[in-house]
């Protein structure tokens, strides 16, 4: 897969805690989701709950249709923090509450893996603890302007 065996050193650039300020934006991104992504996450995680792939079942349990795994949303939201801190091993705590479902409708026509939901994620520094050398990043995760996660907080060790 890789083109060369040289390793880009810039992947290890960890922010200097002295330069990190509360309120600072650490990154933002969008995450496009399709039914194919839900099936991929089910396979990778072992979570095969049918509310994430079967319309009839989802409706029978009172949902409006198939929804994304909360853990898919949570898992996808944190990557911008990993990129910012330069090393996924520096993420020491990560929590979230699942407040709103993320519906991922089936496509009506065309490619079966077309995007039918798009999450928007913005990460902002919520707290800096210089003594412990930790920073808390708060993630705002929204679907069409509505928050889908609450208290979505990541603590990184710098």
């Amino acid at each position: 897969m890789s083109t060369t065996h040289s390793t880009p050193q810039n992947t290890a650039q960890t922010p200097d805690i002295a330069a990190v300020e509360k309120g600072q934006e650490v990154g933002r991104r969008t995450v496009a989701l399709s039914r194919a992504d839900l099936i991929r996450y089910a396979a990778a995680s072992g979570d095969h709950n049918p509310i994430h792939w079967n319309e009839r079942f989802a409706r029978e349990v009172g949902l409006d249709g198939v929804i994304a795994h909360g853990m898919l949303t949570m898992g996808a939201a944190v990557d911008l923090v990993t990129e910012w801190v330069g090393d996924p091993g520096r993420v020491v705590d990560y929590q979230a509450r699942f407040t709103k479902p993320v519906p991922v409708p089936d496509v009506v026509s065309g490619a079966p893996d077309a995007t039918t939901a798009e999450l928007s994620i913005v990460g902002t520094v919520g707290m800096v603890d210089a003594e412990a050398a930790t920073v808390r990043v708060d993630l705002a995760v929204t679907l069409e302007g509505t928050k889908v996660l609450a208290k979505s907080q990541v603590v990184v060790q710098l």
Partner: protein
Amino acid sequence: MSIDPALEGREYPPAKPFQVSREAVREFATAVQAAHPAHHDVDAARALGRRDLVAPPTFAVIVAQRAEAAVVADEEVGIDFSRVVHADERFTHHSPILAGDTLHASVRLERIRVMGAGAMVTTVVEIAAEDGTARSTVASSLLVRADDAEEDA
């Protein structure tokens, strides 16, 4: 039918050990759209001083949910999984989960909060490497909704 708060604190035997393969780390990272090279490329992980591929921050959920299955299967607790909504999740990482790890996990029923005819059930899973080194603590809450008849009452 509500869940008996007296079951709080119940502990379960360890789940079957989970071997973390590079393929599992890459597949999970791809599924959560985690592009960091340390999840995918062994050289990139080693450049960070890690022994092997570093699992994404929520990878531990795979291991945690396997352990939590013991609680869901416990008839005395009586969770109707078709009425469950995942309410919250928290990972506390004591050391990074790496490809090559064999993980041991055990679950306890941390808290049962009765809410009307339903309940909020919080489980805590402790995950450790083969040599006993603590890797992650995973707390998860499930909201078990009352069935429709009780909701309407």
